[in-house]
């Protein structure tokens, strides 16, 4: 655990906390973006260049923009008057804690399941490409088909709305 890790951890967690606590929805969206950026930096610090840059490209370049647009187009960018805590916060806390416990448990187990993995593997982009086009080509194609169908579905939903308006 070095200093760099702690800086990135503070950025990520600070962004996530701010996303929950801020009153303005757009501010929350921007804070989530900060958390995404922190995660990307974490990937880079671990030597996973491709994952880090893909995280920035997809999450900051696309997901954050999508969230912000959704907020703007639904006219809910005004600040909420009441407190930021939902009335069901206790249930939410329990669910979050349970998810965290399961994740933490599986991660701790995986460390013991892979003994001797002390050397950081150097994965370059070429290896990722070879893996995606070789052994993992079927999952890749399935994901591609799934995404395409989702895209077509979204277009169809949008088209129906337009016809109804006319």
């Amino acid at each position: 655990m070095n200093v760099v890790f702690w800086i990135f951890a503070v950025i990520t967690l600070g962004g996530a906390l701010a996303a929950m606590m801020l009153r303005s929805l757009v501010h929350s969206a921007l804070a989530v973006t900060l958390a995404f950026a922190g995660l990307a930096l974490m990937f880079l610090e671990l030597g996973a260049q491709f994952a880090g840059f893909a995280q920035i490209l997809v999450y900051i370049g696309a997901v954050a923009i999508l969230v912000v647009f959704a907020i703007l187009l639904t006219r809910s960018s005004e600040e909420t008057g009441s407190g930021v805590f939902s009335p069901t916060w206790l249930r939410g806390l329990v669910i979050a804690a349970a998810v965290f416990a399961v994740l933490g448990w599986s991660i701790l187990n995986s460390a013991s399941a892979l003994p001797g993995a002390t050397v950081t593997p150097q994965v370059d982009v070429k290896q990722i490409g070879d893996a995606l086009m070789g052994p993992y080509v079927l999952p890749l194609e399935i994901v591609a088909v799934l995404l395409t169908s989702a895209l077509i579905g979204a277009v169809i939903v949008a088209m129906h709305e337009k016809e109804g308006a006319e």
Partner: protein
Amino acid sequence: MFSKLDQIFVVLQHWVAGFVPVSLQPIVLALVGVVGIVVVFPALFALTTVFERKGLGRIQNRLGPNRVGPFGFFQPVADGIKALTKEDVVPFNADHFVHFISPVVLLVAVFMGFAVLPVGRNMQLVDLDAGLLFYFAMGASSELAVFMAGWSSRNKYSLLGAMRAVAQMISYEVILLLSSVAVVMMTGSLSLVKIVEAQSQYTWGLPHWYVFTPWGLLGFILYAIAATAETNRSPFDLPEGESELVAGYFTEYSGFKFAMFFMAEYLAMFSVAGLGATLFFGGWSAPVSALSFVPSWIWFIAKVMVAIFVFIWVRGTLPRLRQDQLMNFAWKFALPLTLLNLMVAGLWRFMNPGVVRWVVCFAILAGAYVLMARVGMKREKFGPRSYRYAE
């Protein structure tokens, strides 16, 4: 002599780093490189503003700036002093923190893109294995900064400008990325240094630039269109269209913050032109092998400046697009063509080198272009062009 001149900046960088202890040398090397980028490109920006105003003046049959210094070349100094000393007006209702931070975020994101550009032989700040991906990741971050600027100003012109900018940048980013992917497929690497090296071989004194292949030519044209849209340059300058939106997303910025937006726009032009030169025009390699003795960084800067000239030329020539034309062009024309270009690049890779490969690939692309243009024209029901004059 010439090889020394070629590496003069690299030698200089190591000479400066030689003054500090070995443990600190990597930091100093990086710092010197960063200072180089932060000094050279803004200086180029200052020069470009004069050239642009003079060039546009020529196109519009007027003189352009000619008061400050010889031939008006000190105009950017005057502009800079003006921007620095002007009052910084922030709207009362603006979101102060976001309003303050967005020009900084934009400028940082734009500057980061230069980190992976090979400006000359051995002259890149970092040679990342995923360099191209890094570049596009930084480009994507600048979109959010534009949105932040428009939203935080609490001004409907700003917000409209930001929404237009983001919609446009997202649409054209797809084309920009996919037209570069063909180059990556052919090189087999995302590293920009490797991409340049793959192109800097010569046959009969002529270089192996990717633009001299059918897929490279179409890829470059699509890249150039998408790059113009990404940098919000005319004819894609809807986000800041003066006649409709005052100044678009940076309407509520004044003084030095305005200068920062201005600078970010021009720096983005330089970096996107530099990337285009790297991907399709062999980066720092010479156009004919006989001229290889000229230092590599001169070639790079020359290619960037030619691209800037074309940017200015196009700005002075073409009228602004309409929003629906912009979107239709991106999704219905340019994107299918880019996807086809990717497939043709694959075909090119697996066909035997020779004239047949050239003819087949070119015929597919040209045929698709003509067919799509014809079908598109039919669908839009364009008749013969007619002119209407004010009566």
